[in-house]
């Protein structure tokens, strides 16, 4: 890290510099790389790898928000994303004749609203439980919704779901064009990331973290613990819904398989592999997940194995990460930095 960065850590967070100066150099580098990626990367990387990473990252982010700040591990986030995605397909235009074909400015707010209502109601059911019971109840709701969409033909079009769900051609841009979609998903991901960072430092976010650490004391201080948790579910639904709507546009389709149990667990894997402590974790987890999903068959091919064992690579990859760093990839980075800092501190102390 740069000198300025060290200085910042030495002087502590209460110094008098503008917020712009306080952003570490590494962040600038990431921003530049992400903004100028379309110059070097081909369509596949922009649309498929990075677009999918941002989408999964946002859905993972909503889980990270609940689990990291609220202490509630919810397997519901993919379902919330799915509700928003399904709403876009049902209310807006699609290839299936069940769709209503409303205009986008009705569809998108309605999708967010319905997903938020769904998340709030499910959250209200789940918040009175703890630990493994939260996981169980959210998994139950996710499974119920999955089977419901698969068997309901009048609204959800059953097993085959919806095809040809395309984003509106706003401002004359085809938002499924790889570069347009890349910037769209990047912007959404940045906004969601910023929102989570901001909320985590707001009074609500601090209260939520208090509720996570000691609900009884927070209740004694006059905070309504249940209301805070339910509100966290409602807030998290916004990030999941953004991801869900983009996911439908990226695939141009949604079907029960998109929101199945394995997809719900994939979101958990993404968040855990990246790290549940910081909002950056899910995005890193998502990148690893996407790279493994896309290239595992090729990696096997490189070593002369048959491609039908591609799940092996994915499994081994995740196993290795969780084994060596139970807190996810970000914790590896933290540990490495702590070691470097300790060495530096030792050097400065050693010098006269």
């Amino acid at each position: 890290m740069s000198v300025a960065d060290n200085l910042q850590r030495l002087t502590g967070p209460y110094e008098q510099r503008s917020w712009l100066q306080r952003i570490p150099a590494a962040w600038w580098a990431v921003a530049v790389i992400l903004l100028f990626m379309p110059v070097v990367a081909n369509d596949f990387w922009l649309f498929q790898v990075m677009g999918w990473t941002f989408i999964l990252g946002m859905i993972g982010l909503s889980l990270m928000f609940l689990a990291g700040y609220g202490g509630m591990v919810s397997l519901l986030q993919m379902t919330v994303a799915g509700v928003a995605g399904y709403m876009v397909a049902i209310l807006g235009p699609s290839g299936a004749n069940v769709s209503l074909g409303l205009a986008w400015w009705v569809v998108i707010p309605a999708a967010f609203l319905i997903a938020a209502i769904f998340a709030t109601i499910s959250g209200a059911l789940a918040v009175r439980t703890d630990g493994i019971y939260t996981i169980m109840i959210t998994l139950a709701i996710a499974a119920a919704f999955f089977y419901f969409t698969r068997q309901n033909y009048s609204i959800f079009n059953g097993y085959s779901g919806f095809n040809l769900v395309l984003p509106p051609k706003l401002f004359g841009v085809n938002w499924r064009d790889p570069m347009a979609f890349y910037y769209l998903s990047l912007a959404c991901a940045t906004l969601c990331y910023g929102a989570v960072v901001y909320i985590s430092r707001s009074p609500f976010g601090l209260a939520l973290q208090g509720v996570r650490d000691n609900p009884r004391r927070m209740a004694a201080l006059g905070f309504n613990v249940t209301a805070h948790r339910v509100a966290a579910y409602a807030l998290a639904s916004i990030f999941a819904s953004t991801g869900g709507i983009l996911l439908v546009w990226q695939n141009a389709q949604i079907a029960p398989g998109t929101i199945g149990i394995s997809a719900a667990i994939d979101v958990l894997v993404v968040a855990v592999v990246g790290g549940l402590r910081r909002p950056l974790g899910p995005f890193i987890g998502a990148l690893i997940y996407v790279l493994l999903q896309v290239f595992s068959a090729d990696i096997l091919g490189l070593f002369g194995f048959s491609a039908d064992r591609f799940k092996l690579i994915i499994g081994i990859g995740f196993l290795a990460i969780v084994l060596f760093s139970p807190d996810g990839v970000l914790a590896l980075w933290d540990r490495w930095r702590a070691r470097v800092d300790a060495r530096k501190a030792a050097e400065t102390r050693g010098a006269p």
Partner: protein
Amino acid sequence: MRKTLLGAVALVALALPGSALAQSNNTIKIGILVALEGAFATGGQDGVRNVEMALKQINHTVAGKKIETVVAPTDTKPDTTVRQARKLIEQDKVDIIIGPLSGSEGIAMRDFAKTIPDKVVINGGSGALETTWVDPAPNFYRFNLDGAQWGYGLGNYVVKTKGWKKVATIAADYSFGYTNFMGFAIDYCKSGGDIVQRFWQPLGQSDFGGIIAQLPNDVDAIYLGLGGTDAINFLNQYQQAGEKTRLIGGTIMADQTVLTARGRAKEALKGTPTSGPFASDSTDPAWVSYVKLYQDSFPAAQRLPSPSLFGLGYYVPTIAAIKALEEVGGDLSNGQAKFKAALNKIQLDSPVGKLTLNENRQATGTVFVTEVVDGSDGNMTNKMVAKTENVNQTLGMTPEQYRAIGLPSRDVVDCAKMRGG
């Protein structure tokens, strides 16, 4: 984070030259889009095997050009399929995609194919009717019959030969179940049969008790449009309930996976007529030599006893692609225009008889009716009892008549109306 970035950059570096190198003029790249995870994984592996076998026959060379393959594994979910297809086109830069394997994947690929007009997609076994019937893609070809075609001929056989004129039906509650049932029902009702009750069972739901209790007693037979473990579960519960009504099977009801399953359940199937795209005991020399080629190409432990439905589903498109490539001398220039034209007018002599394509690029071919009998080795097997040649996409009707019936769904075939007209 720097580490992750480094990792990502390294991966990019690894991936880029691979795709760049392959773009030389003297290779043709074929992407095999196939389910290698989930319920159809065994069939998918057989599909890959069959593509490799067909290519080995020509030594991986057509008109002086080398053929390379890339396998893209799916899990039968349409979104995974489209992701993998996009990877094949954009990252691996393949010229031709062979696949996908299952129905809803096929519909997703029809829509994806429209976004890559310069490439060709040749279906590999998926049988949804809508794929080549509703708004078909001009570069999507299907050399296998669809699910409704597979059901054709069976109805006529059970009415005319067996004399079963009143049936109840139980079928899987999803698109293939509807489609396969539709083909049977159209033919059956036209031949003078009547369907008195229809039951729909969600895929993978193992309890058939409710349906078995409700089955009417005064029917000649029961049509079963189930497959895999659902079929075995049904047969077990059916026998335990002491039911003995005769059965009629859908295309995946009496296939090798059910007939070679352990337990006594399958014995209920003895004498059950079914229909499908091939008959394993066919004496047609083309079929016999195909089975021999299959059995000689792989050691017994690395293959199925005989080629499966999906194996055949991937073999046929591969030989079609080879034949068309030979005809145009491997010329894929100008958006593959010549190759597409050659595919359109191909007359393919396949192991299951002559196949031609119609204006929707959907195959017209032969449907076999078989009956389950005791095999020589103690197992049960299928015996061919009838076949219908030249079954086309509209099952012998005009497109308007066929369109008037509607798309496959629970109650699309109105039996009384069908019998009258």
